[in-house]
C-alpha cells in the first residue's frame, strides 16, 4: 500500500513542487497519476523511490515511512518497487538477458534462479527469443518491454511507470499500457504517471490528478482537463 499524507516538497532552489498532497493506493490497484508538465508528478515518483524526501508530511510504502528511512535500508525498499522510465534506461553494452540478470544479481539471486526467471518474464512481456539482442537492436516499444521485464523480474509488489509511453507511437503506447494492465491483473500494484489524456481515457481506471503541486482530482473514470 502506498500512502501520501499531507506531503509538501520544496527543493533547495526554492521550487515548491508539492503542497499538502494526500492519497492512498491500495495493493493490487491500477492508478493513473496525471497532470501537465511541471505539475509535480515526477516529484511523487522520486518520493516513492526515495530519491528525495518530503519537506513536510509522510510517504509510506507497505507501512514503512520513506521519510525516515536510513541510507542503508533504502536499497531494500527500492527492491519492493519496480520503476519504468520514459527513456527506458537500459544498459546499452549488455544484452536483454544481462540487463535483466543485473537486476536479479542486485538482490542476490543465484544463477539457477536467474536462468529460470528471465525466460518466464520475457515471455510475459512478449520478448521470448530476444534474450541475446542488445537494446539498440530493438524498437522503442521492445526496449520499453525490456524495461518492464526488468521492473518485474524481482517480482515487486508495485510497479511505478514514469511516462512509459512518452517515446512511443500511439499503437505501441496502447500495447505497453495493455501489458501493464495484464501485469496488474496478476496482482501487482501499478502506478502510471502520464500526461497523455487520450491514452488514459481508453482505460477505465482510477485517475489521480496533480496540478501545480496540489491534488486536483481523484476518482474512477476519465482524465478531464480543467478550465
Amino acid at each position, binding site marked *: 500500500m502506498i500512502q501520501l499524507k499531507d506531503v509538501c516538497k520544496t527543493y533547495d532552489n526554492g521550487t515548491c513542487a508539492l503542497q499538502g498532497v494526500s492519497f492512498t493506493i491500495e495493493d493490487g490497484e491500477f492508478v493513473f497519476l496525471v497532470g501537465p508538465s511541471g505539475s509535480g508528478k515526477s516529484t511523487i515518483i522520486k518520493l516513492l523511490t526515495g530519491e528525495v524526501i518530503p519537506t513536510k508530511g509522510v510517504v509510506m510504502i507497505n507501512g514503512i515511512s520513506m521519510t525516515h528511512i536510513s541510507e542503508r535500508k533504502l*536499497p531494500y525498499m527500492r527492491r519492493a518497487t519496480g520503476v519504468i522510465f520514459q527513456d527506458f534506461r537500459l544498459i546499452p553494452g549488455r544484452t536483454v538477458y544481462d540487463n535483466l540478470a543485473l537486476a536479479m544479481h542486485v538482490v542476490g539471486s543465484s544463477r539457477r534462479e536467474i536462468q529460470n526467471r528471465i525466460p518466464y518474464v520475457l515471455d510475459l512481456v512478449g520478448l521470448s527469443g530476444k534474450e541475446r539482442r542488445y537494446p539498440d537492436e530493438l524498437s522503442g516499444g521492445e526496449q520499453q518491454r525490456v524495461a518492464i521485464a526488468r521492473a518485474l523480474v524481482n517480482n515487486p509488489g508495485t510497479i511505478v511507470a514514469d511516462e512509459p509511453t512518452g517515446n512511443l507511437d500511439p499503437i505501441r503506447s496502447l500495447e505497453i499500457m495493455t501489458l501493464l494492465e495484464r501485469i496488474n491483473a496478476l496482482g501487482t500494484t501499478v502506478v502510471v504517471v502520464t500526461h497523455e489524456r487520450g491514452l488514459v481515457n481508453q482505460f477505465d481506471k482510477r485517475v489521480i490528478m496533480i496540478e501545480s503541486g496540489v491534488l486536483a482530482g481523484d476518482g474512477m473514470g476519465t482524465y478531464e482537463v480543467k478550465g
Partner: protein
Amino acid sequence: MKHNFTYFIREGIRNMFSHGFMSFAAVGITVACLLIMGTFSLVAYNANENLKDLQRENAILAFVDESLTDAEAKALGAKLSSLSNVAECTFVSRQEARDNYVSQYDEDDLYADLDAGIFRHRYVIHLTDMERMGATVAAIRQVEGVAKVRADEDISNGFMTVRNIAGVISVALIAVLLVVSVFIISNTIKLTTFDRKDEIAIMKMVGATDAFIRWPFVFEGLLLGLISALVSFGLQWLLYRAIAQGISMSDTLQILRVVSFEQIYRPVAAAFMAVGVGVGVGGSLMAIRRFLRV
C-alpha cells in the same frame, strides 16, 4: 553470497578489459613505480648488508704502549671492553701478531727470523654501531696504556653515506611513487566509473547496495594491482640479476657483496604484492566513493 562473488570477479575482469588502454596505462605506470621503489629499496638493503660485513671485518686495532708489562697489557682488555659501543675486544700478543704477519707475507721464508719484539701487543676491537666509530676511536685513544689506534673510518663512512642516502631516497621515492600509483589507478577506475555512471544509477534504482556496486571496482583495482606486482616482480628479478652480474664482473665494484635474489625473493614478492594490492584497492575505493552518491 557465493554467486555474487563470482559475479563481482567477472564484472571486475570485464571492467578491466572494457577500458583496455587505460588499464594498460595504469599497470605500466604502477610497474614503473614499483620497479623504482624496489630498486632503491634493494640498493639500500645491499648497502646495509655490506656495512654489516664491514662491521664484522673492519676491526679497530689498539696498540698497547711498549712500556707496559705483559700483565699490564692484558689487564687493559677489561678497560677497553667496558667502553660503550665495544662489542668484542680480543688481545693479540706480540708473538701472535708476528706469527700472523709472517704467515701472511712470508712466501720465501724471508721473515723466518723476524723478532717478535718489533711488534706491539694489541687489541682487535669490534664495534656494535659503526656510525659511532669516530667517538669510540677517540674514547679508545683516551685509555691509558693505548699508544696508537688504527681504524679505517673512511671506508665505513663511505658505506654509511651510501646506505643513508639510498635509505632516504628510497623512503622518499616510495612515498612519492605510492601517491602517484594510487592517483593513477584511482583515475583509471574513476574513468571507468564515470563511463558507467548511468549504469550505477540504474543499479541503485533497482535496489543495489553501495557494497554491491563497489565490489566489481574493488576487484578491478585488485586485479590491476596484482598484475602490476607480478610484472614488476619479474622485471625486478631480471634487473637485479643483470646489476649483480655487472658488479661481479667489474674490476672496481667486485669488492661489493650483492645478496643473491634467490635469498630475498620471498620478502620482495610479498612487498610487491602488498604494495600492488594496496595501491589497486585503495585507488579503486577512492574513485568509486564520489559516484555512489546517486
